[in-house]
C-alpha cells in the first residue's frame, strides 16, 4: 500500500510540503523558547521553499501531476501559487524574527503571544499551501475558509480595540462571502452530478472532472453559479465593492502577516475564482465571466484610486493598493487574450513581491517612528538609509515606474486591452492608474525625502530586517529587466490552461 502511495517522487514532495509547516507548528508548541521557535519557523519555511522549487521543476517537465487517486492535482497554475506562497512565506519568517523580536523587547507581546504567533504563522502557511494543491473544490473551499480562521487569530494577537474590530469585520464579512462561494460550488457540483456517474463519491467535486463535463452543464445554471462564486471569492480576494474588511484587517495585522495577507492570501482566493472561471469558460465560453471580471476590476481600481488619494495611514494606503492590484489582475484576466492572461499571472507574482517589500519596510518604519500616519513619517532616507531606500524602490515599483517589474505586467495588460478592443475599460484603467501614480507618488516622496524630526535617532534595524528587503528588491529589479526562462515557460503553460476555455466560445 505504502509502496504504491509513494511511488513517485512528487507524492513524497507534496506530502512533505504539507507536513513541514504542521511539524514545525507542533515543535513551536512544544519547545516554547524564543530563539528556538524562531529558528524552527525559519528553517521550516526555507524547507518549504526548497520543496516548492523541486515541485516547480517537475511540473515544468510533466505539465500536470495527479496524485493519490486524484485528490491532489498540480499544474502550472498551482505551481505559480506554490512558488509565491513559499517565497513570500520564507522571507516573511525571516523578517518576523526581527519584527516580533522588537515587539517582544518593547513588551508589546509576551512569550505566550510569541508562541501563538509562530504557531499561527506555520498553520497559515499550511492552509495556504493546501489551496493550490487540492483538486477537490470542496477541500479547496475548506482550506480557504481555514486561512480566514487562522489569519483572524493572527490579527487578534494584539488585544487593542482596533485589532478586535478588524478581526470581527474580517471574520464576519469573509465568512459570509465564502458561504456565497460555497453556494456556487454546490450548484456546480449539482450541474456535474447530473452527468457524472461518480455521483456522491469524492471525485464528483474534482476540478479535473468538472472541466471534462463542463460542456454538458446547463448554461443558465453555470451563469447563476458563477455570479455567486465571483461575489464569494471576490470578497476574499479583495475585489471592490466587497473589499470593506480588507484595509482594516491588513493594517491592523503585524507587518509580516500583512505581507502574507496582501501578497499571497488574496492570490489564493483569486486562484479559487480562476479555477471556476476556467470551468465556466469551458462550459459557456469565456465571454460571460470575462465581462464580469473586467467590471469588478474597474470598480476596484476606481475605489482604490479615490481612497489612496485621501489616505492618511501608511498601512491602509498599502492595503488599498492591494485592492488596486487585484483589480488590475482581474481586468487583465478579463481581457481574455493570451497576452493579457500572461500579464495577469506575471502580475500575481510581481505584486506579491513588491507588496511584501513595502509591508516589510513600512513595518520597520512604523516601529521606528511609532506612528502609521503619513504626515508624521518623513525623511525616512535620512533616519533609516537602507530601509528608506528599499521603501522607495518598492513604492516606485508599485506605481508602475520603469524599469521595475510591475511596469512590465501593467504594460502587457494595457496592450492586451487595446488589442482585444476593450477601449473604454483600458481608458478607465489608464485614468485610475494616473490618479494612483500621482497620489501614491506624492505620499511616497513626502515620506522618503521630507525633513525628519530632529530628535530622531538614526540607523536601520538589525540585519534580519534588511536581508529580506534586499532579496525582494533585487527580485523586483531583475524581474523588471527580464523574466527568467523557466518562469516564462511556467506562466505560458498556465496561460494556456486558462485560455483553452476561451477558444471554445
Amino acid at each position: 500500500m505504502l509502496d504504491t502511495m509513494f511511488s513517485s517522487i512528487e507524492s513524497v514532495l507534496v506530502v512533505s510540503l504539507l507536513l513541514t509547516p504542521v511539524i514545525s507548528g507542533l515543535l513551536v508548541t512544544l519547545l516554547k523558547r524564543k530563539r528556538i521557535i524562531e529558528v524552527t519557523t525559519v528553517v521550516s519555511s526555507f524547507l518549504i521553499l526548497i520543496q516548492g522549487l523541486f515541485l516547480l521543476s517537475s511540473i515544468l517537465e510533466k505539465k500536470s501531476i495527479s496524485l493519490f487517486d486524484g485528490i491532489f492535482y498540480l499544474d502550472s497554475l498551482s505551481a505559480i501559487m506554490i512558488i509565491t506562497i513559499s517565497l513570500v512565506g520564507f522571507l516573511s519568517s525571516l523578517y518576523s524574527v526581527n519584527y516580533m523580536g522588537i515587539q517582544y523587547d518593547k513588551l508589546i507581546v509576551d512569550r505566550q503571544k510569541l508562541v501563538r504567533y509562530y504557531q499561527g504563522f506555520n498553520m497559515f502557511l499550511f492552509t495556504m499551501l493546501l489551496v493550490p494543491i487540492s483538486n477537490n473544490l470542496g477541500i479547496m473551499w475548506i482550506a480557504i475558509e481555514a486561512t480566514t480562521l487562522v489569519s483572524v487569530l493572527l490579527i487578534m494577537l494584539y488585544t487593542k480595540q482596533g485589532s478586535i474590530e478588524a478581526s470581527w469585520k474580517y471574520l464576519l464579512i469573509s465568512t459570509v462571502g465564502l458561504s456565497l462561494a460555497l453556494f456556487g460550488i454546490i450548484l456546480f457540483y449539482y450541474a456535474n452530478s447530473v452527468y457524472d456517474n461518480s455521483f456522491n463519491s469524492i471525485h464528483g467535486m474534482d476540478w479535473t472532472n468538472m472541466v471534462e463535463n463542463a460542456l454538458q452543464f446547463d448554461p443558465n445554471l453555470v451563469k447563476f453559479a458563477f455570479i455567486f462564486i465571483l461575489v464569494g471569492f471576490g470578497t476574499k480576494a479583495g475585489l471592490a465593492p466587497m473589499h470593506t474588511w480588507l484595509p482594516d484587517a491588513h493594517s491592523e495585522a503585524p507587518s509580516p502577516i500583512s505581507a502574507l495577507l496582501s501578497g499571497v492570501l488574496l492570490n489564493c482566493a483569486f486562484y479559487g475564482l480562476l479555477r471556476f472561471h476556467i470551468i465556466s469558460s469551458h462550459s459557456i465560453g469565456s465571454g460571460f465571466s470575462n465581462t464580469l471580471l473586467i467590471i469588478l476590476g474597474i470598480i476596484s481600481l476606481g475605489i482604490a484610486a479615490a481612497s489612496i488619494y485621501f489616505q492618511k495611514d501608511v498601512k491602509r494606503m498599502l492595503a488599498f493598493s492591494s485592492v488596486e492590484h487585484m483589480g488590475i489582475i482581474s481586468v487583465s484576466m478579463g481581457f481574455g487574450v493570451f497576452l493579457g492572461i500572461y500579464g495577469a499571472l506575471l502580475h500575481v507574482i510581481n505584486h506579491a513581491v513588491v507588496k511584501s517589500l513595502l509591508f516589510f519596510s513600512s513595518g520597520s518604519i512604523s516601529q521606528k517612528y511609532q506612528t502609521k500616519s503619513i504626515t508624521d513619517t518623513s525623511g525616512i532616507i535620512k533616519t533609516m538609509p537602507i530601509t528608506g531606500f528599499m521603501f522607495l524602490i518598492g513604492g516606485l515599483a508599485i506605481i508602475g515606474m520603469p524599469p521595475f517589474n510591475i511596469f512590465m505586467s501593467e504594460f502587457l495588460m494595457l496592450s492586451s486591452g487595446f488589442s482585444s478592443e476593450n477601449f473604454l475599460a483600458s481608458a478607465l484603467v489608464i485614468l485610475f492608474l494616473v490618479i494612483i501614480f500621482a497620489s501614491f507618488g506624492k505620499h511616497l516622496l513626502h515620506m522618503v525625502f521630507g525633513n525628519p524630526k530632529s530628535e530622531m535617532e538614526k540607523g536601520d534595524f538589525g540585519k534580519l530586517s534588511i536581508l529580506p528587503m534586499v532579496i525582494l528588491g533585487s527580485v523586483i529589479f531583475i524581474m523588471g529587466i527580464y523574466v527568467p526562462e523557466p518562469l516564462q515557460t511556467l506562466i505560458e503553460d498556465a496561460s494556456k490552461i486558462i485560455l483553452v476555455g476561451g477558444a471554445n466560445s
Partner: protein
Amino acid sequence: MPTQIDLLYISAVILLIATFGIVVRRGFSDWLHAYRYQTIILAGVVALIAFVTNIWELYIVSALTLGIKAIIIPKVLFYVTKKLDSPIKLETNPYVSLRISVIFSALLVTMSYFMTLQLPISSDKTIDVFLPVSFSLFFIGLFIIISRRKALNQIVGLLTIENGLFLFAVVITHGFSLVIEIGLMADILVGVIISSILLFRMSRTFDSIDIKNLESLRDD
C-alpha cells in the same frame, strides 16, 4: 398515520418556525435555543432523506450534525453568554425593529419560493419541499447579520446561513462526500470557538458586545 410527504411538510414548517424564533426574540439564550431546535430538526430531515434515498452516508452526516451543531456548538455559545460581563443579556434596540423584521423575513420566505421556481433544477418530492426552505434560512440568516447590533446574534445568523447551505446541498446533491462534510463541520466548530474568544475580548475591552463600538477604523 402521517404519510411520508406529510412528515416532510411538517418538518419543513418546524424548521421555518425555529428560524423565526431567532428573528422575533430578544434574549441571548432564546436565540441559542431556537438555533438548537432548528438544527435538531435539520438532523432529522437529513435522516429522513437518508431513509428515502437509501444513502447510508447521510445517516452519519445526520449524526454528526446532531452531535456537533446541535449539542457542542450551542453548549459553547451558552457557556459564552453565561460568562459575558454585560449584565443585560438582551437585544434592546436592533437596527430594524422586531416587528418589521418579522414582516421582512416573511417577505424573504416568499421571495425564496419565487426564486426556486426560476432555478433550472429538476424537481422531486424532497426538492419541492425543502429547496425554498433552504433559501429562506440562507436569506433570513443574512438579514439577521445586517439588522442586529449584538455580535452574538450575528454568529447565530452566520450559523443559520450555514444550516441553509447544508440543507441546500443535502437536498439537491444528497450531500458531499463524508470527508468534505467532516472538514466543513471542523471549519464551523473552529470558527465558533474563535468568534467566542473574540466575543470575550470584545466584552472585556468595550464592556458590551454591541457592534456600534466597532466603527473606529474608517477613512475620513
